């Protein structure tokens, strides 16, 4: 298998779709009030979940700790990972859209163009996934919890990302 195809396999939009869906579920838990996810936030998910160090930082940070602690953990390291978030966001914009497309087509998520927001459609359910994928999902869920606590603007500001 060629390297490109490997990458495509590793960072595929099917996985992305699921991650986005899980993120939205976590952002606006079914038990609580329905809150649509600001569209822009979706573009942060795949970069933060699919990249190993960011993922590790997310998994290291407790759900209850909050975004800012996650950001600090993200920052801890040899280089400024926060900045690399921006570059990955730019690089995987297209992947995010493809993932969103699959999620939309398969009814995982509903995109409201008028409000530029996304809502989960399908109910939460356990998925037949390998352990490594489970970790990815966990990361996406934590992101959901943290992003929901603050405004979208604040998220972008803390993570120093511009969409």
């Amino acid at each position: 298998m060629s390297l490109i195809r490997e990458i495509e396999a590793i960072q595929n939009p099917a996985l992305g779709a699921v991650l986005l869906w899980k993120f939205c579920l976590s952002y606006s838990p079914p038990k609580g009030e329905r809150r649509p996810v600001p569209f822009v936030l979706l573009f942060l998910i795949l970069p933060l979940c699919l990249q190993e160090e960011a993922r590790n930082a997310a998994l290291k940070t407790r759900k209850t700790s909050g975004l800012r602690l996650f950001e600090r953990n993200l920052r801890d390291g040899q280089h400024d990972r926060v900045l690399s978030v921006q570059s990955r966001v730019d690089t995987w914009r297209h992947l995010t859209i493809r993932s969103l497309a699959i999620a939309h087509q398969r009814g995982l998520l509903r995109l409201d163009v008028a409000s530029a927001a996304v809502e989960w459609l399908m109910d939460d359910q356990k998925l037949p996934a390998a352990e490594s994928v489970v970790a990815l999902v966990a990361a996406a869920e934590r992101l959901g919890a943290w992003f929901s606590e603050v405004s979208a603007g604040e998220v972008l500001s803390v993570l120093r990302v511009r969409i």
Partner: protein
Amino acid sequence: MFFQLKELVLWPKDDTKEPRRVSFSGGRVNVISGASKTGKSAIVPIIDYCLGADKCAIPVGPIREACAWFGIVVSTAEGEKLLARREPGGQRSTGDMFIAEDVRVTVPRTIEGKNASVDDIKHRLDELAGLTNLSFDPEASSASQFKTRPSFRDMVAFCFQPQNLVANQDVLFYKADSYEHREKLRTIFPYVLGAITPALLAKRFELEMLRRELRVKERELAGLQQATARWLSDLRTYVSAGREYGLLKDDISPNASADEMVAALRRIKDHSSRDAAITPDSINQSVAEYINLERRETVVATQLAAFRRRSTEMTRLRDSAEGYVNALRTQRDRLSLVEWLRGQNETDPHCPLCENDLGAPSKELEALATALAETDAASAKFRPAPDAFEREFQAVRTEIRRLTDHLDGVRKEKRSLSDRSREAQQAAFKSAAIDRFLGRLEQALGTYENVSPGSDLIAEIAELKQRVLTLATEVSEAQIGRRVDNALKRINQGAGAIVPSLDAERPNDPVSLSLQDLAIKVTGSEGREDFLWEIGSGANWLAYHVAMTLALQQFFIAQPDSPVPAFLVYDQPSQVYFPRRVTRLENEPDDPKWGDEDVAAVRKVFEALGRAAQQVAPKLQIIVLDHAGSDVWGDIDGVGLTEEWRGHEKLVPMTWL
């Protein structure tokens, strides 16, 4: 010695003129009576010049200007000799001389040129006088003039009493006014007095040589003894070193005497380090073994390196295989949701943004599904570690372990060999040290033997001491002193016999010659000894001079083989009765009249001289140059006129000038 003037000769510069010749008689008093400025006082300088004086003291003026050569004819035991010397001209002096020797010498009309040098003449005169070659002081260096050999020139001091000396209160001897000559005279006086014979002089010389040699040898011995003393104090160290080197097997107690230790050390002297173990062969063997081990080490190390490389490659291969499997797994994992998603219905086929058909997601999912299938297939095919590989890998690791152990073994062996070899080196070094020790020991024992009683050096010293002792008794300084005293006693007595006949104030007071001062002392009634300068009056001085000089000559004549020429020249002895006037008016007569007393006094002098000459006739010749005319000294036995220089008669003929 018999040495008397026969003639005095002057050769004129103008060779058309005949030479001027003054004849003397031997064995008596010759008087040249003359007025002032007739050349009387040139006589002594001329004679001295011809006898090899350093400088020409002949007064400048008519004499020097007119004469080309000066000469004397002397009668000696060997016959006659003509000694002539060139007038120096502008120089202070010249060494050009002319000598003629024969039973009877013919005086040449002219002298063509030199045929000898002054040094030749001096040497000739020394030979004539029988003066030895030996230096007077054996330790004389050429720098020390005072103690050079006695020469004829020194003897001349007893022959001349020039005008300034004949009644001089300070100086008795000719040339003794100069420091060098005084010293020389003082040194040779014992010889002149016969206190030291030539044989004795030779013995004295030998004695001094022996003494010097003895000193050198004694110093050498002392040095050796000192070295040995130091070495004896180190004996214990030598003994313990000998024991340490395994050479000294004997049991030497710490209190052993020096002799015992020396004896023990002598015994080991003949050992050598070959008695120690290590030979060059055994060293070479070790070296060969070492080289062998190094070769083995290299081989094993190379093998080991190869295996290690193999192991690394295999490890890398295995790791990459594992990595591949992991990668596949990851892909599979990530693709795992595709199926689940495909299983979901298409809920909304339209794009929310543009209302178009949303076909892409499906297509993507299809593609992903394909990828997933391929991944599965690949995983199934690939087995990361086939058994053969594992077995091979283990075999490599085992071989590595084995080779490592082997290499360690070889290296250990090398190290131990090197340690042993180092011991071999040390042993070799030690053997060299032993050899050196033995060398030192041998030398020290040799030195010790040199200073032990039976040694050659000590024997030599003993012999030298014996010879010195023997000679010393022969060359007794005391004896020489005694002889000198005896001689002086005779001389003093002689002088004392003459003084009463002269015009001295204290004619009966004993007269003595002080060698130390080269002066005459007169002993007063209280026992005090007075020098001439402490006694006043020129008459006294003249009297003592005459007495002493005559007494000395009498003594010399009485000696067999005396080197002193037996002639005397007195220049102006009457001057004390004829006071010199500092200034003189031109038309004053230069021939004054004397009082009767003065005449009588002067006559006494001539009488004494005549008597002295007669007593030993014909051995002594006296020449007197004086104002006094025959009225003063006429009719005295032994006194005769040689020439009278008055009016137009002078030394240098008027026609020359």
